[in-house]
């Protein structure tokens, strides 16, 4: 059995290895670390908090069932988000069918990020709140890149797209996010244009 102290210091991969060997506690620690992250990842794609919570729950159950398939040579987060994406796609299809039965107006309203933003869903002025109003794919890659610190290759593997497609989505996400959130603060003090460019591009 693992002591309560070190389990919090263990890396995700170590915990996953323990969970694969049969430690339920290690898996619960992993679930604790990732449940909020998965929630914010799923939430913009789904209609309600409840749906997102259900999907988080479903994802962890699926991972627990298949933990013996985890390969420690890869990062745990990549494996987690790959499974999460697959589940989300099927769930989103089911949801789309269910919303489609309610009527096109309801479906359009729930899918449009601008309507969601106007309804007060993103009241905060934070960058992540602005990012949630982006298109589904743009928010996904933005979260995986900056929220989870995955590489372009890992994101491509997780969401099943090419590296070029991921880079294109990231580029669009940055462009749109700048339009919504405004320019970067704190750098206006750069005196000349040349100095500003040197500062930003060359570090």
């Amino acid at each position, binding site marked *: 059995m693992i002591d309560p102290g070190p389990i919090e210091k263990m890396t995700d991969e170590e915990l996953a290895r323990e969970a694969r060997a049969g430690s339920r506690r290690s898996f619960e620690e992993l679930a604790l670390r990732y449940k909020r992250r998965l929630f914010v990842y799923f939430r913009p794609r789904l209609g309600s908090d409840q749906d997102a919570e259900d999907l988080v*729950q479903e994802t962890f159950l699926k991972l*627990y069932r298949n933990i013996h398939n985890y390969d420690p040579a890869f990062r745990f987060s990549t494996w987690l988000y790959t499974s999460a994406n697959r589940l989300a796609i099927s769930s989103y299809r089911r949801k789309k069918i269910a919303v489609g039965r309610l009527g096109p107006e309801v479906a359009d309203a729930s899918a449009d990020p601008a309507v969601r933003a106007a309804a007060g869903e993103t009241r905060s002025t934070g*960058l992540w709140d602005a990012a949630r109003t982006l298109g589904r794919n743009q928010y996904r890659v933005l979260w995986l890149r900056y929220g989870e610190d995955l590489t372009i290759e890992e994101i491509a593997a997780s969401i099943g797209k090419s590296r070029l497609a991921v880079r294109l989505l990231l*580029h669009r996400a940055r462009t749109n996010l700048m339009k919504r959130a405004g320019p970067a603060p704190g750098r206006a003090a750069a005196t000349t244009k040349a100095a500003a460019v040197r500062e*930003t591009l060359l570090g």
Partner: protein
Amino acid sequence: MFCNLTRWLISRAEDRGKKMPRFAERHAAQCGACREYARFTTSLSARLSTETPEFLAKAPDSPWDPAAWAAEGAGRGTRAPLRRRFVLHPYPAAAAVLVVAASALVFFLVVRPGPGPGLTSAEKQEVIASLKSVTAVPAEFRGAIAEAESSLAKERLILENSVLSAVEYFQTRLNIRIERTKEAPKSL
């Protein structure tokens, strides 16, 4: 004109760590919007990382469904790990090679024998006589053929007589002479 290209190159530099071309640097130095995009892109990582804990804190701390986890835990212990890759085990592979080698030996030594010992002349005569007796036409067949041929000859004779009488009739009736100029066809 170069704004879109420059911004794409700025994104590429951020994602792949590649240096921007000089023309793009020059354009960014002169274009305020592209300069702003470059500043936003390079600061994005730090800004989003700073905001992530606060953003995550706003997510609900959903409780776990104990019933589902208990059910999973009950069924999980008996499940064996799945084999993901095809592995050629040495013992079955060696057994398969042995079987193939044994089959080849049996084929070459038993099924396909080499040239046997030669026959004597008396034995050869016996073999030829037995072959002739097998391939010879039976006597009853010969009788049947003769009967068939005799009935055909009778039929031919009757037909010839009919033709001759018809010729005689026409000669006397029409007062003409009909002569046989050449041999009748063999079929008649």
